[in-house]
Protein backbone atom coordinates (compact mmCIF):
# COMPACT_ATOMS: atom_id res chain seq x y z
CA UNK A 1 0.00 0.00 0.00
CA UNK A 2 1.20 3.50 -0.89
CA UNK A 3 -0.16 6.86 0.10
CA UNK A 4 -0.95 9.21 -2.74
CA UNK A 5 -2.08 12.78 -3.23
CA UNK A 6 -5.64 13.27 -4.42
CA UNK A 7 -4.61 14.81 -7.76
CA UNK A 8 -2.09 12.03 -8.42
CA UNK A 9 -4.66 9.36 -7.61
CA UNK A 10 -7.12 10.79 -10.11
CA UNK A 11 -4.34 11.23 -12.69
CA UNK A 12 -3.63 7.46 -12.57
CA UNK A 13 -7.06 6.81 -14.04
CA UNK A 14 -6.91 7.36 -17.82
CA UNK A 15 -9.71 8.36 -20.16
CA UNK A 16 -11.64 5.26 -21.17
CA UNK A 17 -10.91 3.33 -17.97
CA UNK A 18 -13.42 0.97 -16.36
CA UNK A 19 -14.02 2.14 -12.82
CA UNK A 20 -16.02 0.64 -9.96
CA UNK A 21 -17.25 3.30 -7.54
CA UNK A 22 -18.68 2.48 -4.12
CA UNK A 23 -21.80 4.09 -2.75
CA UNK A 24 -25.57 3.93 -2.59
CA UNK A 25 -27.36 7.13 -3.58
CA UNK A 26 -24.11 8.95 -2.83
CA UNK A 27 -23.69 7.46 0.64
CA UNK A 28 -20.29 5.78 0.79
CA UNK A 29 -18.97 7.31 -2.43
CA UNK A 30 -15.41 8.73 -2.43
CA UNK A 31 -16.62 12.26 -3.01
CA UNK A 32 -13.26 14.06 -3.26
CA UNK A 33 -11.90 11.56 -5.77
CA UNK A 34 -14.99 11.83 -7.95
CA UNK A 35 -14.81 15.63 -7.86
CA UNK A 36 -11.12 15.50 -8.79
CA UNK A 37 -11.84 13.31 -11.82
CA UNK A 38 -14.34 15.94 -12.93
CA UNK A 39 -11.82 18.74 -12.33
CA UNK A 40 -9.23 16.91 -14.43
CA UNK A 41 -11.75 16.57 -17.26
CA UNK A 42 -11.76 12.78 -17.47
CA UNK A 43 -13.73 11.32 -20.42
CA UNK A 44 -15.21 8.05 -21.69
CA UNK A 45 -15.23 6.25 -18.36
CA UNK A 46 -17.20 3.06 -17.88
CA UNK A 47 -18.64 3.33 -14.38
CA UNK A 48 -19.82 0.24 -12.51
CA UNK A 49 -21.86 1.31 -9.50
CA UNK A 50 -25.15 0.64 -7.76
CA UNK A 51 -26.68 3.88 -9.01
CA UNK A 52 -25.82 7.30 -10.42
CA UNK A 53 -26.89 9.14 -7.24
CA UNK A 54 -28.43 12.57 -7.72
CA UNK A 55 -27.24 15.54 -9.79
CA UNK A 56 -24.39 17.22 -7.92
CA UNK A 57 -23.81 14.29 -5.57
CA UNK A 58 -21.26 11.48 -5.91
CA UNK A 59 -21.40 9.76 -9.29
CA UNK A 60 -23.99 12.35 -10.34
CA UNK A 61 -21.05 14.79 -10.69
CA UNK A 62 -19.37 12.52 -13.25
CA UNK A 63 -22.63 12.13 -15.19
CA UNK A 64 -23.28 15.88 -15.28
CA UNK A 65 -19.69 16.56 -16.40
CA UNK A 66 -20.02 14.17 -19.35
CA UNK A 67 -17.18 12.01 -18.01
CA UNK A 68 -19.10 8.76 -18.43
CA UNK A 69 -19.55 6.83 -21.67
CA UNK A 70 -21.24 3.80 -20.16
CA UNK A 71 -22.64 2.85 -16.79
CA UNK A 72 -23.52 -0.56 -15.41
CA UNK A 73 -25.93 0.10 -12.56
CA UNK A 74 -29.13 -1.12 -10.92
CA UNK A 75 -30.92 2.18 -10.54
CA UNK A 76 -30.78 5.59 -12.23
CA UNK A 77 -34.23 6.82 -11.21
CA UNK A 78 -33.15 9.58 -8.85
CA UNK A 79 -30.86 11.18 -11.41
CA UNK A 80 -32.91 12.73 -14.23
CA UNK A 81 -29.69 13.73 -16.03
CA UNK A 82 -28.70 10.08 -16.43
CA UNK A 83 -32.09 9.29 -17.94
CA UNK A 84 -31.93 12.34 -20.20
CA UNK A 85 -28.47 11.45 -21.50
CA UNK A 86 -29.50 7.83 -21.94
CA UNK A 87 -32.58 8.74 -23.99
CA UNK A 88 -30.48 11.20 -26.04
CA UNK A 89 -28.01 8.41 -26.83
CA UNK A 90 -25.11 10.19 -25.07
CA UNK A 91 -24.77 7.59 -22.35
CA UNK A 92 -25.03 3.82 -22.54
CA UNK A 93 -26.83 2.36 -19.54
CA UNK A 94 -26.78 -1.33 -18.71
CA UNK A 95 -29.36 -1.97 -15.99
CA UNK A 96 -28.68 -4.97 -13.77
CA UNK A 97 -30.75 -6.16 -10.78
CA UNK A 98 -29.01 -4.98 -7.63
CA UNK A 99 -28.48 -8.42 -6.15
CA UNK A 100 -27.12 -9.66 -9.46
CA UNK A 101 -24.81 -6.66 -9.84
CA UNK A 102 -23.21 -7.16 -6.44
CA UNK A 103 -22.83 -10.91 -7.07
CA UNK A 104 -21.21 -10.32 -10.47
CA UNK A 105 -18.71 -7.99 -8.80
CA UNK A 106 -18.19 -10.47 -5.97
CA UNK A 107 -17.55 -13.22 -8.52
CA UNK A 108 -15.02 -10.97 -10.27
CA UNK A 109 -13.16 -10.40 -7.04
CA UNK A 110 -13.40 -13.94 -5.74
CA UNK A 111 -12.01 -15.73 -8.76
CA UNK A 112 -15.32 -17.05 -10.08
CA UNK A 113 -16.45 -16.97 -13.69
CA UNK A 114 -19.97 -15.97 -12.72
CA UNK A 115 -22.96 -16.92 -10.62
CA UNK A 116 -26.31 -18.65 -11.09
CA UNK A 117 -29.25 -16.59 -9.87
CA UNK A 118 -33.02 -17.06 -10.10
CA UNK A 119 -33.42 -13.28 -10.34
CA UNK A 120 -34.44 -12.16 -13.81
CA UNK A 121 -35.67 -15.54 -15.08
CA UNK A 122 -38.68 -14.92 -17.33
CA UNK A 123 -38.07 -11.16 -17.56
CA UNK A 124 -36.27 -8.89 -20.05
CA UNK A 125 -33.13 -9.43 -17.97
CA UNK A 126 -32.94 -12.98 -19.34
CA UNK A 127 -32.38 -11.77 -22.90
CA UNK A 128 -29.12 -13.08 -24.34
CA UNK A 129 -28.28 -15.11 -21.24
CA UNK A 130 -27.90 -18.79 -20.68
CA UNK A 131 -30.64 -20.41 -18.58
CA UNK A 132 -29.45 -23.35 -16.52
CA UNK A 133 -31.74 -25.75 -14.66
CA UNK A 134 -30.46 -27.30 -11.46
CA UNK A 135 -32.61 -29.68 -9.44
CA UNK A 136 -35.61 -28.52 -11.47
CA UNK A 137 -35.12 -24.82 -10.73
CA UNK A 138 -34.23 -22.30 -13.47
CA UNK A 139 -31.30 -19.92 -13.00
CA UNK A 140 -29.57 -17.36 -15.19
CA UNK A 141 -25.84 -17.52 -15.72
CA UNK A 142 -24.54 -14.06 -14.83
CA UNK A 143 -20.91 -13.43 -15.66
CA UNK A 144 -18.27 -11.90 -13.40
CA UNK A 145 -17.42 -8.20 -13.52
CA UNK A 146 -13.99 -6.68 -12.95
CA UNK A 147 -12.61 -3.18 -13.38
CA UNK A 148 -9.31 -1.39 -13.95
CA UNK A 149 -9.86 0.65 -10.79
CA UNK A 150 -12.01 0.43 -7.69
CA UNK A 151 -12.68 3.75 -5.96
CA UNK A 152 -13.49 2.86 -2.39
CA UNK A 153 -14.80 5.03 0.43
CA UNK A 154 -13.89 3.87 3.94
CA UNK A 155 -14.66 5.30 7.35
CA UNK A 156 -11.34 4.19 8.86
CA UNK A 157 -8.12 3.23 7.10
CA UNK A 158 -5.06 2.38 9.16
CA UNK A 159 -1.50 3.24 8.10
CA UNK A 160 -1.06 -0.05 6.26
CA UNK A 161 -4.47 -0.08 4.53
CA UNK A 162 -6.82 -2.16 6.67
CA UNK A 163 -10.32 -0.76 6.20
CA UNK A 164 -13.44 -0.37 8.28
CA UNK A 165 -16.73 1.05 7.05
CA UNK A 166 -19.52 2.90 8.83
CA UNK A 167 -23.26 2.19 8.89
CA UNK A 168 -24.92 2.12 5.47
CA UNK A 169 -21.83 3.59 3.74
CA UNK A 170 -20.39 0.08 3.46
CA UNK A 171 -22.71 -1.16 0.67
CA UNK A 172 -20.70 -2.01 -2.48
CA UNK A 173 -17.31 -0.81 -1.16
CA UNK A 174 -15.73 -3.94 0.36
CA UNK A 175 -16.91 -6.12 -2.54
CA UNK A 176 -15.50 -3.72 -5.14
CA UNK A 177 -12.21 -3.56 -3.23
CA UNK A 178 -11.72 -7.21 -4.29
CA UNK A 179 -12.63 -6.82 -7.95
CA UNK A 180 -10.26 -4.30 -9.55
CA UNK A 181 -6.65 -4.28 -10.70
CA UNK A 182 -5.94 -1.12 -8.73
CA UNK A 183 -7.76 -0.22 -5.52
CA UNK A 184 -7.75 3.43 -4.45
CA UNK A 185 -9.18 4.33 -1.06
CA UNK A 186 -10.49 7.62 0.20
CA UNK A 187 -10.84 7.37 3.98
CA UNK A 188 -12.71 9.69 6.27
CA UNK A 189 -10.17 8.93 9.01
CA UNK A 190 -6.61 7.62 8.74
CA UNK A 191 -5.67 5.94 12.02
CA UNK A 192 -2.71 4.11 13.57
CA UNK A 193 -2.35 0.39 13.02
CA UNK A 194 -4.23 -1.37 15.81
CA UNK A 195 -7.06 1.13 16.09
CA UNK A 196 -9.09 -1.22 13.92
CA UNK A 197 -9.03 -4.48 15.88
CA UNK A 198 -8.31 -7.61 13.82
CA UNK A 199 -11.90 -8.82 14.22
CA UNK A 200 -13.19 -5.49 12.94
CA UNK A 201 -11.12 -5.24 9.77
CA UNK A 202 -13.53 -5.62 6.85
CA UNK A 203 -11.12 -5.14 3.94
CA UNK A 204 -7.63 -6.57 4.59
CA UNK A 205 -4.66 -4.30 3.83
CA UNK A 206 -3.06 -6.48 1.13
CA UNK A 207 -5.91 -5.80 -1.33
CA UNK A 208 -5.54 -2.01 -1.02
CA UNK A 209 -3.07 -0.33 -3.39
CA UNK A 210 -3.40 3.37 -2.56
CA UNK A 211 -4.76 5.52 0.23
CA UNK A 212 -5.34 9.16 -0.55
CA UNK A 213 -3.46 11.30 1.96
CA UNK A 214 -4.95 14.35 3.61
CA UNK A 215 -4.06 17.39 1.46
Amino acid sequence: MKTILLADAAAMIPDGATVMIGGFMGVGTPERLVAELVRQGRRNLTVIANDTALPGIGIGKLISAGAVKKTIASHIGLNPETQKKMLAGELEVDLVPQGTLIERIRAGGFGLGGVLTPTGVGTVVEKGKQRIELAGKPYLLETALRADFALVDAFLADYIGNLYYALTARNFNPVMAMAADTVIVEAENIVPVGVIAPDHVITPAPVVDYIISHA
Partner: protein
Amino acid sequence: MDAQTIIAKRIAQELRDGMLVNLGIGIPTLVSKFVPAGMNVYFQSENGLIGTGVPPAEGMHHPLLTDAGGKPVSALPGACTFDSAMSFGLIRGGHLDMTVLGALQVDAAGHLANWMIPGKMVPGMGGAMDLVTGARRVVVAMQHTAKGQPKIVKQCSLPLTSARVVDLVVTELAVIGFPGGRATLLEIAPGVTVKQVREATEAELEVSERVSTMAV
Protein backbone atom coordinates in the same frame (compact mmCIF):
# COMPACT_ATOMS: atom_id res chain seq x y z
CA MET B 1 -59.19 7.44 6.41
CA ASP B 2 -57.22 8.11 3.24
CA ALA B 3 -56.33 5.39 0.73
CA GLN B 4 -52.69 5.12 1.79
CA THR B 5 -53.60 4.71 5.47
CA ILE B 6 -56.15 1.98 4.70
CA ILE B 7 -53.56 0.08 2.68
CA ALA B 8 -50.76 0.47 5.22
CA LYS B 9 -52.95 -0.48 8.19
CA ARG B 10 -54.21 -3.59 6.46
CA ILE B 11 -50.75 -4.72 5.45
CA ALA B 12 -49.52 -4.19 9.01
CA GLN B 13 -51.92 -6.99 9.98
CA GLU B 14 -49.73 -9.37 7.96
CA LEU B 15 -46.76 -8.72 10.26
CA ARG B 16 -45.76 -11.35 12.82
CA ASP B 17 -43.40 -11.16 15.75
CA GLY B 18 -39.75 -11.64 14.78
CA MET B 19 -40.28 -11.25 11.03
CA LEU B 20 -37.61 -9.78 8.78
CA VAL B 21 -39.42 -7.41 6.40
CA ASN B 22 -38.34 -5.15 3.56
CA LEU B 23 -40.54 -2.15 2.78
CA GLY B 24 -40.31 -0.38 -0.56
CA ILE B 25 -40.52 3.36 -1.08
CA GLY B 26 -43.91 5.12 -0.93
CA ILE B 27 -47.00 3.48 0.58
CA PRO B 28 -45.00 0.42 1.74
CA THR B 29 -42.86 2.62 4.02
CA LEU B 30 -46.04 3.70 5.87
CA VAL B 31 -46.60 0.11 7.04
CA SER B 32 -43.91 0.55 9.72
CA LYS B 33 -46.12 3.16 11.41
CA PHE B 34 -48.76 0.53 12.18
CA VAL B 35 -46.72 -2.28 13.73
CA PRO B 36 -48.95 -3.67 16.51
CA ALA B 37 -47.83 -2.59 19.99
CA GLY B 38 -45.47 -5.04 21.64
CA MET B 39 -44.56 -6.76 18.37
CA ASN B 40 -40.93 -6.83 17.31
CA VAL B 41 -40.45 -6.67 13.56
CA TYR B 42 -37.03 -6.32 11.91
CA PHE B 43 -37.10 -3.93 8.99
CA GLN B 44 -34.38 -4.28 6.39
CA SER B 45 -33.12 -1.53 4.12
CA GLU B 46 -31.40 -3.20 1.17
CA ASN B 47 -28.57 -0.67 1.23
CA GLY B 48 -27.30 -2.61 4.23
CA LEU B 49 -29.31 -2.27 7.43
CA ILE B 50 -31.53 -4.41 9.64
CA GLY B 51 -33.26 -2.47 12.39
CA THR B 52 -34.28 0.54 10.32
CA GLY B 53 -36.09 3.06 12.51
CA VAL B 54 -38.02 6.26 11.91
CA PRO B 55 -36.07 9.33 10.77
CA PRO B 56 -34.27 10.94 13.73
CA ALA B 57 -35.21 14.37 15.07
CA GLU B 58 -34.33 17.37 12.93
CA GLY B 59 -30.58 17.99 13.03
CA MET B 60 -29.81 14.60 14.58
CA HIS B 61 -29.34 12.55 11.43
CA HIS B 62 -26.10 10.79 10.50
CA PRO B 63 -25.03 11.27 6.87
CA LEU B 64 -23.93 7.63 6.65
CA LEU B 65 -27.19 6.16 7.94
CA THR B 66 -29.88 6.17 5.28
CA ASP B 67 -32.61 4.01 3.81
CA ALA B 68 -32.61 2.59 0.28
CA GLY B 69 -33.99 5.88 -1.00
CA GLY B 70 -31.00 7.73 0.46
CA LYS B 71 -33.16 9.35 3.16
CA PRO B 72 -31.90 9.65 6.76
CA VAL B 73 -33.17 6.98 9.15
CA SER B 74 -32.37 5.86 12.67
CA ALA B 75 -31.17 2.44 13.78
CA LEU B 76 -33.09 0.65 16.52
CA PRO B 77 -31.40 -1.16 19.42
CA GLY B 78 -30.05 -4.44 18.04
CA ALA B 79 -29.64 -3.03 14.54
CA CYS B 80 -26.85 -4.31 12.31
CA THR B 81 -25.23 -3.14 9.10
CA PHE B 82 -23.66 -5.13 6.27
CA ASP B 83 -22.50 -4.94 2.69
CA SER B 84 -24.70 -5.36 -0.39
CA ALA B 85 -23.71 -9.00 -1.01
CA MET B 86 -24.98 -9.90 2.48
CA SER B 87 -28.05 -7.74 1.97
CA PHE B 88 -29.09 -9.57 -1.18
CA GLY B 89 -28.05 -12.90 0.29
CA LEU B 90 -30.69 -12.23 2.93
CA ILE B 91 -33.20 -11.37 0.21
CA ARG B 92 -32.55 -14.20 -2.26
CA GLY B 93 -31.53 -16.78 0.31
CA GLY B 94 -34.95 -17.24 1.88
CA HIS B 95 -34.15 -15.20 5.00
CA LEU B 96 -36.52 -12.35 4.21
CA ASP B 97 -39.99 -13.22 5.50
CA MET B 98 -41.89 -10.55 3.62
CA THR B 99 -41.42 -7.76 1.13
CA VAL B 100 -43.94 -4.99 0.53
CA LEU B 101 -43.68 -3.15 -2.79
CA GLY B 102 -45.59 -0.80 -5.01
CA ALA B 103 -46.85 -1.81 -8.45
CA LEU B 104 -47.64 -0.38 -11.86
CA GLN B 105 -49.64 -3.47 -12.84
CA VAL B 106 -50.57 -6.85 -11.39
CA ASP B 107 -52.16 -9.43 -13.67
CA ALA B 108 -54.87 -12.05 -13.16
CA ALA B 109 -52.30 -14.70 -12.22
CA GLY B 110 -50.42 -12.42 -9.80
CA HIS B 111 -47.52 -11.35 -11.97
CA LEU B 112 -46.11 -7.97 -11.02
CA ALA B 113 -44.77 -5.17 -13.20
CA ASN B 114 -43.27 -2.33 -11.20
CA TRP B 115 -39.99 -1.19 -12.64
CA MET B 116 -40.34 0.46 -16.03
CA ILE B 117 -42.60 1.99 -18.66
CA PRO B 118 -40.74 1.47 -21.95
CA GLY B 119 -39.78 4.72 -23.63
CA LYS B 120 -41.15 6.77 -20.76
CA MET B 121 -39.80 5.92 -17.36
CA VAL B 122 -36.74 3.74 -16.97
CA PRO B 123 -35.50 4.16 -13.41
CA GLY B 124 -33.96 0.70 -13.25
CA MET B 125 -35.09 -2.26 -11.22
CA GLY B 126 -32.85 -1.59 -8.24
CA GLY B 127 -33.55 -4.39 -5.79
CA ALA B 128 -37.12 -5.10 -6.91
CA MET B 129 -36.39 -8.17 -9.05
CA ASP B 130 -34.39 -9.83 -6.28
CA LEU B 131 -37.02 -8.96 -3.67
CA VAL B 132 -39.93 -10.38 -5.66
CA THR B 133 -37.96 -13.46 -6.67
CA GLY B 134 -36.46 -14.18 -3.27
CA ALA B 135 -38.75 -13.06 -0.46
CA ARG B 136 -40.83 -15.73 1.26
CA ARG B 137 -43.94 -13.61 0.90
CA VAL B 138 -44.56 -10.79 -1.58
CA VAL B 139 -47.24 -8.23 -0.73
CA VAL B 140 -48.19 -5.44 -3.12
CA ALA B 141 -49.33 -2.11 -1.71
CA MET B 142 -50.99 0.09 -4.29
CA GLN B 143 -53.96 2.26 -5.14
CA HIS B 144 -56.55 0.19 -6.97
CA THR B 145 -56.51 2.39 -10.06
CA ALA B 146 -54.20 4.99 -11.61
CA LYS B 147 -55.88 8.01 -13.21
CA GLY B 148 -59.08 5.97 -13.33
CA GLN B 149 -57.44 3.05 -15.14
CA PRO B 150 -57.39 -0.38 -13.48
CA LYS B 151 -53.97 -1.57 -12.29
CA ILE B 152 -55.13 -5.14 -11.80
CA VAL B 153 -55.24 -6.24 -15.42
CA LYS B 154 -55.82 -9.42 -17.43
CA GLN B 155 -52.21 -9.51 -18.52
CA CYS B 156 -49.36 -7.12 -17.74
CA SER B 157 -48.48 -4.97 -20.75
CA LEU B 158 -45.41 -3.64 -18.93
CA PRO B 159 -42.19 -5.66 -18.42
CA LEU B 160 -42.49 -8.09 -15.51
CA THR B 161 -40.44 -7.77 -12.35
CA SER B 162 -40.26 -11.53 -11.85
CA ALA B 163 -41.73 -14.78 -13.13
CA ARG B 164 -42.73 -15.45 -9.53
CA VAL B 165 -46.27 -14.38 -8.67
CA VAL B 166 -47.16 -12.22 -5.69
CA ASP B 167 -49.01 -13.53 -2.66
CA LEU B 168 -51.29 -10.64 -1.78
CA VAL B 169 -52.42 -7.32 -3.24
CA VAL B 170 -53.79 -4.72 -0.85
CA THR B 171 -55.53 -1.62 -2.20
CA GLU B 172 -57.84 0.98 -0.67
CA LEU B 173 -60.77 -1.08 -2.01
CA ALA B 174 -59.83 -4.69 -1.54
CA VAL B 175 -57.50 -7.48 -0.53
CA ILE B 176 -56.81 -9.87 -3.38
CA GLY B 177 -54.99 -13.19 -3.28
CA PHE B 178 -54.06 -15.69 -5.99
CA PRO B 179 -55.00 -19.19 -4.82
CA GLY B 180 -54.60 -21.65 -7.69
CA GLY B 181 -53.14 -18.87 -9.84
CA ARG B 182 -56.40 -16.89 -10.08
CA ALA B 183 -57.06 -13.39 -8.78
CA THR B 184 -59.50 -13.85 -5.90
CA LEU B 185 -61.27 -11.22 -3.86
CA LEU B 186 -60.67 -11.99 -0.20
CA GLU B 187 -61.71 -8.78 1.57
CA ILE B 188 -63.39 -5.50 0.72
CA ALA B 189 -62.84 -2.16 2.40
CA PRO B 190 -65.57 -0.82 4.70
CA GLY B 191 -68.37 0.74 2.65
CA VAL B 192 -67.17 -0.80 -0.62
CA THR B 193 -69.21 -3.35 -2.59
CA VAL B 194 -68.01 -6.34 -4.59
CA LYS B 195 -69.51 -4.67 -7.66
CA GLN B 196 -67.42 -1.54 -7.11
CA VAL B 197 -64.25 -3.61 -6.83
CA ARG B 198 -65.12 -5.53 -10.00
CA GLU B 199 -65.74 -2.29 -11.91
CA ALA B 200 -62.32 -0.97 -10.88
CA THR B 201 -60.59 -4.21 -11.87
CA GLU B 202 -59.84 -5.34 -15.42
CA ALA B 203 -58.89 -8.91 -14.50
CA GLU B 204 -61.61 -11.48 -13.87
CA LEU B 205 -62.04 -11.68 -10.12
CA GLU B 206 -63.03 -14.85 -8.38
CA VAL B 207 -64.97 -14.00 -5.26
CA SER B 208 -64.10 -15.98 -2.17
CA GLU B 209 -67.07 -17.61 -0.41
CA ARG B 210 -65.93 -15.89 2.72
CA VAL B 211 -65.36 -12.31 1.57
CA SER B 212 -64.93 -10.27 4.71
CA THR B 213 -64.56 -6.60 5.45
CA MET B 214 -61.04 -5.25 5.95
CA ALA B 215 -60.52 -4.62 9.65
CA VAL B 216 -59.00 -1.17 9.33
